[in-house]
C-alpha cells in the first residue's frame, strides 16, 4: 500500500496540469456544491422528492474525473457521484432533469430516484440502488476493453459500506486474475448511513484489502483533488500498460445526512460534522490556487456567481420540462422491434 498523503503542491509541476485546468477543476467543485445546496433546498421546500449529496466528496470526484479520458473511459458511478458525473460531462440541466424526474431526464426518463446517473454520450452506465452491484459491471466493461484492444479503462466508485459486499470481493478478484484495466475507487466517508467504519470493518484502510487480490492499494487524501488526480493517473497508466487493476481509497467526509430522508443527528456527533466542515476541501483548494497565483479574488467571485446562475437556469429549465407520458410506462422493458442492443 502506498500512501500519497504528501504535499501535492510540490507535485504540481511534475503532473503537468495547466493552471487553467486547475481553475477548471475548482469551478466544477463549485458547480457541484451549488447544485447540491440547491437540490437540498428544493427537497426541503417539497419541490424535489429526494436528494443525495456529494458534499465533502467533490474534491475526490473532480480529481478522479480529470484523470480520465472523458467520453471514452467507462464510468460506473454510485449515487454519491454527482460531482464526478459533472466533471465527466453531464450538465446542471441534466442533473436537474433527473432530480425532477422529467420525461427528458437522460438518466432514466424519470424512472429512477435522482442521482442514479446514466449518460449515453459520456459512457456513464446506469446503476441500481443496490450497493456495489456496479463494481462487477466495470469489471465486465474492462474485459470488453481488453478484448477489443481499445485503450480505455473502466472506473467504478463505491463507499466504505460498499466494500463489505460480496460483489466487491468477487469483482476485485476477477479483475486481478485477468489483469483487467479497471480502477476501483472507494470513497471512504466513514459511514454507511449510520453505521460507523469500525462497525463495518476491523481495519483502518479499505485499500489494505488490495493485497489480498494481488493488486496495488492506494490511500489518498480525498480532500486534495491533485493527489487524487495523480493517484488515478498512475492507476490508469498501469491499467493501460496491461498491469491490471488498482484499488484507490479516497478518505473523505460526508458533510450532510445520508440523504434528504435521513437525519444524522440521530447518530452522529455534531462536533465531528463541524470539524469536517471546517476542513472543507473547496475553500482549501481556492486558497491553494490563490497562493499559487492561479486564482484571484475577482475571478473567484465571478466563478461563484456563474455557477449559481448556471444552477438557477438549470432549475428553471428543468421545472418547465415536460412530465413523462403515462404511455411511457411500459417502454424499454425489452428492446423494441429492430432496436439494436
Amino acid at each position, binding site marked *: 500500500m502506498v500512501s500519497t498523503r504528501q504535499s501535492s503542491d510540490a507535485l504540481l509541476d511534475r503532473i503537468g496540469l495547466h493552471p487553467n485546468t486547475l481553475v477548471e477543476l475548482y469551478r466544477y467543485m463549485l458547480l457541484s456544491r451549488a447544485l447540491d445546496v440547491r437540490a437540498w433546498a428544493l427537497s426541503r421546500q417539497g419541490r424535489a422528492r429526494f436528494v443525495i449529496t456529494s458534499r465533502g466528496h467533490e474534491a475526490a470526484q473532480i480529481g478522479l474525473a480529470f484523470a480520465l479520458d472523458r467520453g471514452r473511459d467507462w464510468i460506473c458511478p454510485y449515487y454519491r457521484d454527482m460531482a464526478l458525473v459533472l466533471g465527466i460531462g453531464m450538465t446542471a440541466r441534466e442533473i436537474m432533469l433527473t432530480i425532477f424526474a422529467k420525461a427528458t431526464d437522460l438518466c432514466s426518463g424519470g*424512472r429512477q430516484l435522482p442521482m442514479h446517473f446514466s449518460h449515453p454520450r459520456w459512457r456513464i452506465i446506469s446503476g441500481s440502488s443496490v450497493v456495489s452491484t456496479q463494481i462487477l459491471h466495470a469489471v465486465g466493461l474492462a474485459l470488453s476493453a481488453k478484448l477489443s484492444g481499445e485503450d480505455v479503462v473502466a472506473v467504478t466508485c463505491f463507499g466504505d459500506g460498499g466494500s463489505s459486499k460480496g460483489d466487491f470481493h468477487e469483482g476485485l478478484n476477477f479483475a486481478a486474475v485477468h489483469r483487467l484495466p479497471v480502477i476501483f475507487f472507494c470513497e471512504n466517508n466513514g459511514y454507511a448511513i449510520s453505521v460507523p467504519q469500525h462497525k463495518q470493518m476491523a481495519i483502518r484502510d479499505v485499500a489494505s484489502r488490495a493485497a489480498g487480490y494481488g493488486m496495488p492499494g492506494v490511500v489518498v487524501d480525498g480532500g486534495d483533488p491533485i493527489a487524487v488526480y495523480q493517484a488515478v493517473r498512475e492507476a490508469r497508466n498501469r491499467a493501460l500498460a496491461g498491469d491490471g487493476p488498482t484499488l484507490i481509497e479516497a478518505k473523505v467526509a460526508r458533510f450532510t445526512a445520508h440523504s434528504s430522508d435521513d437525519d444524522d443527528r440521530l447518530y452522529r456527533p455534531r462536533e465531528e460534522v463541524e470539524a469536517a466542515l471546517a476542513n472543507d476541501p473547496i475553500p482549501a483548494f481556492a486558497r491553494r490556487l490563490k497562493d499559487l497565483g492561479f486564482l484571484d479574488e475577482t475571478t473567484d467571485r465571478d466563478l461563484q456567481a456563474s455557477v449559481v446562475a448556471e444552477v438557477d437556469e438549470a432549475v428553471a429549465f428543468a421545472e418547465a420540462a415536460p412530465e*413523462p407520458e403515462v404511455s411511457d*410506462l411500459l417502454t424499454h422493458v425489452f428492446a423494441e422491434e429492430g432496436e439494436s442492443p
Partner: protein
Amino acid sequence: MSMKNVLQAVHDALDEEMARDERVILLGQDVGVRGGVFRASDGLLARYGERRVIDTPLSESAIIGVAIGASIGGYRPVAEIQFADFIWPAMDQIVSEAARMRYRSHGTWGCPLVIRTPYGAGIHGGLYHSQSIEATFAHVPGIKVVAPATPRDAKGLLKSAIRDPDPVLFLEHKRTYRLIREEVPDEDYTIPLGKAIVRRPGRDLTILTYGMMVHESLKAAEAVAADGIEVEVVDLRTLSPLDKPAILESVERTHKVVIVHEDSLTGGFGGEIAAIIASEAFDTLDGPIMRVAAPDAPAAPFNDRLEEAYLPSAPKIEQAIRQLAAY
C-alpha cells in the same frame, strides 16, 4: 387498547418479544443507534444493549447467513433487510440454506428466524425501494411468508413469526407504516400464521388480497356497495402456508373472484390462487377469475405520474368488480 400505526405495532412486537425471550436478537443495517431507517427498532438498542441489537456491515448475505448460524446456536434472530429490494443478494442463503436446513438434515437442525423487510410502492421510492417480493418466496418450500395489512395483525403475526420454529419472511408494506392506524390490544396476543380473515363480508363477489391492497380493495368495495354490489374482501395475511379453506369457502359463497396484488401480474402470486380455485372450486364459479395487479414492468417508477399509473388502486379494482359483477 391503544391507537397505533403499523410501524408502532411492529416496534412493539419486537420490544415485547425481546423482553419476553432473551434469545431474541435483532440484526441489520442501521437497526442500532439509528433505530432502523424507518425507526422500527427505535430505542431497542438502549433497552437491550449492543449484544442483542446488532448493527451489521452492509452485507445482506451475511445478515441472513449469520442469522441462520445464530438460530442453530440457540438464538431467535430477527434479521432486518432494509428494503425488500435488497433481499436478492441474500437469496441463496434464504432459499438454499434457511428454507432447507430442516429438510436436508432430516429434522436434526432447524432455523427459527424471522426476516423482516419493508416492501411495496406508493412512497415514491423508485425502482429499487418499491418492489414486491412475495411471489418468489411463496414458491419456496420451507419458509413461511406473512404479509399483514393492519397494525393489529402486524403485531400479532410478528409475534407468532418470532415464536415459530421455522424461518418466516415477514413483509411490511411500507405505505401502511404510517397510513394505517387502529386500536391494538395492550396485552400480549398472537395471531396464528396461515389464517386469512374476512375484512368485509359480501355475497356477490370475493376479493382475495393482502397487504396494502386490502385497503384499496375495501375502498373499491365501498364504492360499488352504493350500487348494490356486495363484495367480500378476504385478507390472506399469510401467503405460505396459504389458507386454502378460507379461500374456497368464500368463493363457494360468492361464485366470483377478483384477485388483487400490487406485484406485477405475470408469475405473481395471484396465479397460484387462481389455479387453486380453477382446480378445486371450478364448479362453483360463475365467471372468469380476474386479476388486478401491476403491469409487467420491473418495478414502480419514481415519477409520480408513472408510479400512479403503475400501481393497482381502488378505481382499477372497482372497474374489475363492475365488469365481473355484470358477467
